[in-house]
């Protein structure tokens, strides 16, 4: 039962990672590509962490997965505006 949940959730996570990558390749400009990467991968990692959580033995391991996801989110939320800012500054150069 737990194994099935893991298969389904990590599989779903992979779909979102693929979506993020497809968006990165297909979307027309830097900013739209950033949307795809941050949001797609954020959700992908969330589902993979959730799927792996079904394989843990202790709550401490679950807490660690939550911490990993939280830190990755924080990093994505911080880095995305910075990259967008850099792209904006670059595109405004004469």
């Amino acid at each position, binding site marked *: 039962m737990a194994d099935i949940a893991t298969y389904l959730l990590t599989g779903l996570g992979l*779909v*979102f990672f693929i*979506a*993020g990558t*497809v*968006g990165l390749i*297909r*979307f*027309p*400009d830097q*900013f*739209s590509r*950033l*949307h*795809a990467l*941050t*949001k*797609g991968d*954020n*959700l*992908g990692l*969330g589902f993979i962490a959730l799927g792996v959580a079904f394989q843990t033995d202790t709550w*401490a391991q679950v*807490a*660690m997965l*939550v*911490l990993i996801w939280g830190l990755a*989110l*924080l990093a*994505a*939320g*911080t880095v*995305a*505006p*910075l990259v*967008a*800012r850099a*792209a*904006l500054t670059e595109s405004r150069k004469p």
Partner: protein
Amino acid sequence: MHRALLLGGAWLTLTGAEALVLGVLVTGLSVWLSLRLLPAKHPLALWRLAQHLPRFLAGSVSGGVDVARRAFSSDMRLNPGWLEISSDLPDGARVALGGELSLMPGTLSAGSEDGKLLVHVLDTSAGFDSAIPREVEDIAAIIGQTPKVRP
């Protein structure tokens, strides 16, 4: 105090119940460093942060699903544009708002200019911007302010 809770919690999560003495030392040191680098100017209401979590998770899911749908659809239905958000949030909170919006459906911050947050919208006709005032309110509540939004 809040930082001690957060950083101590992170240490406990990473190490388990071992190395408690070292943990107290490291937590103390990192709280000191954190306060030195970023002095506490605004109160941080952790319960408000916790209250915001369900909305954040829901936004993350719909943001991911939205971007995935567009990535896989043949015409992608993109109609990108820019918005400027002015609010009474202090600088740090505006950065936090930018980070938050970057993870919510259809919006991406590109830093601020003259106190206004620059926001890139993936599809200007999809009404992503209607969620922004609510985000501003939530962030303001987390640092103990009542906000006014000027769209």
